[in-house]
Structure formats: C-alpha cells, structure tokens
C-alpha cells in the first residue's frame, strides 16, 4: 500500500536527511582534515590556520616518506601487529572452547561456571591489584603482560555461547553418531556455521588490541617492545619529538607538524579500511551480547 506523503511529511524528511548529512559530515570531518593536512604543503600549512577539507597545493608525500623511515614507527607497527595477531589467537581459542563447553546441556556445572565468570563483569580487583599481580609474576617488560590480562573477555564469551546455543542440536548429534569427539565437532561443525559471530568478535578484539595503550604504558618500559600507540602518545600528546628524532636530523617545525598528521593516518588507516566490510555483522554481535548479558 502506497501512502501519499503530506507536505509536512516531505519537509520533515528533507530536514531529517539534511541533519543526518551534517551528523555524517561532523563524524568524518576531523579525519578528513588530518588526511588533507598530511599531504599539504607544510610551509603554507603552518601559516594558514583552521579547518582543511582539501589539501593545500603543492601536494606532497614527503611526510609519509619520512614517517616510514622512522625506526620507532616501524618497531611500533611490528610490535602492534604481534600483539594483535597473538592476542586475537589467544582470545578466540579460549573463548570458543569455553563457549562450546558452557553451551553443552550435558555439561553439568555449565551454569555454575558461567555465573563464576559473569561475576567478574560486575566486580573486579581493579587497577592496583591487577598491576601487583603482573609485578609479582615478574612480567614487567615482558610481552606476556600485554597478552595475558586481555586474553579472555567474559562479554565475548556470553556472545559466543548464546550464538552456539542457537545452532540446532541435530547437527551436532549426527556428527557424534559418526564418532566425532568434542574438539572435532567444535572445529568441523560449530566454528564453520558461526563465522559471522567469530568475525565480529575478531574485529572487536583486534580493534581493542590495536588501540590499546594503557596496559603497555604501565607494564613496558623497554621501548623496543612498545606498541605503536605508545609512540603515537609521545608524538601527539606529550608533544615530545623523541620518537621522531632517532635516525633523522631534527627537521623544521612545519615538517614535524606534517609528520604528526601522517603518523595519525598510518596508525589508523588499517582499521578504518576493515570495519565497513564487517559492518553488517555488528548488529548480530551487539544484540546477542546485550540481551543475554
């Protein structure tokens, strides 16, 4: 049935669309500014203040060339890739295995263990006791201090367990009759049909690890183990040029500002390129988590 739109309705729809356009623009603008500045002419940029949605000619890529020459940025990038790769692997392994077992009806203590884990979402030791634990385990300046505390997340467990429970039992039963054990069922049956949930959790875990900096800042003093975000903090927040100085001569201030923009883009681009492709799964992941949470 097609309902004829009234004039008032048309005005509303137009205003609504314009407002939404503005919201979208506001969300995009700061990064657009950074992107434009990163390829603008540095000396003009230093003189012309304000918002740049379009780069100032002559365009230049020297900022990027400089950034990719900094050893600290490369070390940070390599470390971050390491933390993300192993962190995701650890997270997914622990979460899928636990979720599979806790979703089994024939596993008697399932609800008790679930409660035991869910309690940690309501109450936890907090910053200092967690810090002491790492100190006492002798993990200061150890990469494990970054990987272990974040290796398991109860919220993701809840999401995955709920999604595993929705899988028809018949699928599992037939495999069991064929003599498959639990690990085989998990690997060959449950995981392949849960790709959407796994994709969202992978994305959220990976983004979390990519952007994480606080644990690294309290557990790592050894700069060779620092993730990219800590070098970024030095450049962007502490306004220190220490991360930039090594390996290159001190460049002009304009040059350094240019480099700041380039660093932001280099550190953010990988994630901004990935999330739109997984967007359609977000709803599923978020919904399951919050309803059964």
């Amino acid at each position, binding site marked *: 049935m097609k309902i004829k739109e009234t004039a008032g*309705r048309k005005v509303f*729809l137009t205003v*609504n*669309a314009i407002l*939404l*356009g503005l*919201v*979208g623009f*506001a*969300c*995009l603008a*700061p*990064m657009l500014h950074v992107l434009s500045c990163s390829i603008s002419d540095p000396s003009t940029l230093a003189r012309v*203040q*304000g*918002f740049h949605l379009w780069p100032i000619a002559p365009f230049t890529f020297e900022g990027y060339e400089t950034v990719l020459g900094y050893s600290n940025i490369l070390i940070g990038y390599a470390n971050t890739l390491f933390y993300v790769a192993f962190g995701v692997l650890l997270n997914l392994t*622990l979460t899928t*295995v636990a979720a*599979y*077992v806790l979703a*089994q009806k*024939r*596993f008697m203590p399932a609800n008790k*263990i679930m409660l*035991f884990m869910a309690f*940690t979402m*309501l109450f*936890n030791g*907090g*910053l*200092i*006791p*967690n810090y*002491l*634990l790492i*100190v006492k385990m002798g993990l200061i300046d150890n990469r494990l201090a970054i990987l*272990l505390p974040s290796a*398991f997340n*109860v919220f993701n467990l809840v999401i995955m367990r709920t999604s595993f429970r929705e899988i028809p039992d018949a699928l599992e039963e037939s495999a069991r009759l064929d003599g498959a*054990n639990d690990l085989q069922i998990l690997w060959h049956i449950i995981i392949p049909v849960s790709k959407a949930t796994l994709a969202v959790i992978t994305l959220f875990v990976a*983004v979390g690890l990519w*952007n994480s900096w*606080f644990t690294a800042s309290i557990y790592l003093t050894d700069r060779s183990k620092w993730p990219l*975000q800590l070098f*970024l*903090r030095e450049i*962007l*927040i502490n306004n220190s040029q220490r991360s930039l100085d090594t390996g290159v001569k001190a460049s002009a201030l304009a040059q350094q500002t240019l480099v*700041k923009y380039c660093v*932001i883009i280099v550190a*953010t681009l990988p*994630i*901004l390129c990935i*999330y*739109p492709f997984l*967007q359609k799964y*977000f709803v599923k992941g978020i*919904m399951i988590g919050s*309803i059964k*949470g």
Partner: protein
Amino acid sequence: MKWKLLAANYRSNRLLYWMVFPVVVFVIIFSYLPMLGLTISFQDYSLVKGIFGSKWVGFANFADFFNSLYFLRTFRNTILLSLLNLLFCFPAPIILALMLNEVKSVRYKRLVQTVSYMPHFISMIVVAGLIIEFTNSSGVISTLVTALGGKATSYISLPQYFRSIFIVSDIWQNIGFNSIIYLAALSGINEELYEAARIDGAGRFRQMLSVTLPGLLPTIVIMLILSVGSIMNLNFEKVLLLYSPSNYETSDVIMTYVYRIGIIKQKIGYSTAVGLFNSVVSLLLVLGANKLSKTYTETSMF
C-alpha cells in the same frame, strides 16, 4: 548425592571438563587473585614484605582518603562527568537511531551509518591528539573564537571548558556506534502495530509515542542500567590523556587519582583502598539500577 552425579557426569564427558579447565584457571588467576589482592587496602602494604608480611591497619587507608582534599574533588568530578555523560551522550544515539529510521533511501541510510561508526574505531590516543590539536591556541576552535572577537588560548587546559570538551568529543566518538543497538530494536518492532495505530487515526508523532518508544523501552532500560553501572568507571584512559595539573580542578577523577598515587607514587595500600571504594560504589549503583528497573519496568539484566 550431588558429588556423585558430578563424578558420573565427568566420567562420561571427560574431554569437556579438560577443555574448560584452562579457561577456569585463567579466570582464577587474572580475575579472582586480584580480588583477593584487595585485602591490601586494609594494610600498610610494602612490596618487599608482601601481602602476608605487611601490617594490618584496618580502615585507616579509607579514612585517609575521606579526610583528604582529594576525596571531594575526585568524587565530585567522577559523578559530574558521568551525569553529564548520561544527560547528553546517552540520548544522542537514540535520537540518531530514530532519525535514521525515518530515512527511506537504504543507500543514504547505510552511508550515514558507515560514516558515523568511524570515530568509534579511532584510537583514544589519536582522538585525544585531535582534541588537543583542535583546542590549542592555534587550533580550529581558537581560530573560530578569535573571528568572533574572543581570544585564542589552549581551551583544554582551562578547567571551565574541560567537561564540555570531554562530553562533546564523547558524543562524536560514540553516537553512531551506540545507535546500532537501537536501530536493531527499531527494526524489530512489528509493522502491524503501526498499521493498527494508523487505522486508529494516530499521526506520525502519536505513532512514535505509542508504538516506537514502547518498542524501544526494554533496550533503553538495559542500556541505562549498563550506563549507571559504569558511572564510576567512566573512560579514565581518556581523562588521563587530556588532563594536566592546570585543569585538575574539573578533570581529576577517582581512577586517575588511583593511577597517580598507586602506579606513579607507589602508595599501594592506600591507592588500592581508593580503587576498592570506587568498585564498591559502582557495584551498588548497578545493583540498585537493576532493582529499580525490575520494580518499575519489568526489564532487568539479572
């Protein structure tokens, strides 16, 4: 006998038990051991003597905190920042979802959604870097203010602007992503309800009040309980990146104080006590919110 049943259950499902065992151990080590570690908030803790050798001081650490100048400042700032957050950042994604829901063109809707999710994926360091860049004396805000006759200055370091900057940037970062859940709830509302409302002569606005909002309510309530639960755990990493002694008056929250006093100054027992105070208030808030909502809206988390 229950243990006998459990033993029988174990014998027929050995593999399941061994699969979940490492994860349980993991949770014990990384979640429950630190909870035991909370006992040091009742000690004059020394790293050398450890938890069993340090002197017990009862509630002295808590008393020290409540009597210090920092208590009022950090508690007030924590509560105020969170309440402002509830007031502005909480409704923003609901409004965005309602607006998106009215859009007829699927492609336009998808485009606005994709773009508005973006800030959520940018790291806190970069967001803080952008905030500092935009609010410093040669930044966009200063340029705008000087054009209007004001003076250029570093706005983030002025205590009177810290909260506004914190809240506005928070809306910017999360409005899109947080709208996802409301959009999903909106798409779950039965189309026939709208049909029935139209037949009863309800206009667009009336339909929103009588159909849309009741349909959204359970989601709103759950999200509200979660937000109330996180009142004490507001984004302290962001505060940590943006605050400085010049704006402590409005920016210093309990968790940043715990960080400074515990990790930097290594007053372990005292800072653990302050942190425990924060966690207990937080737990009470979430339990309270859950109970209230159970009583009045029949929606609850547990």
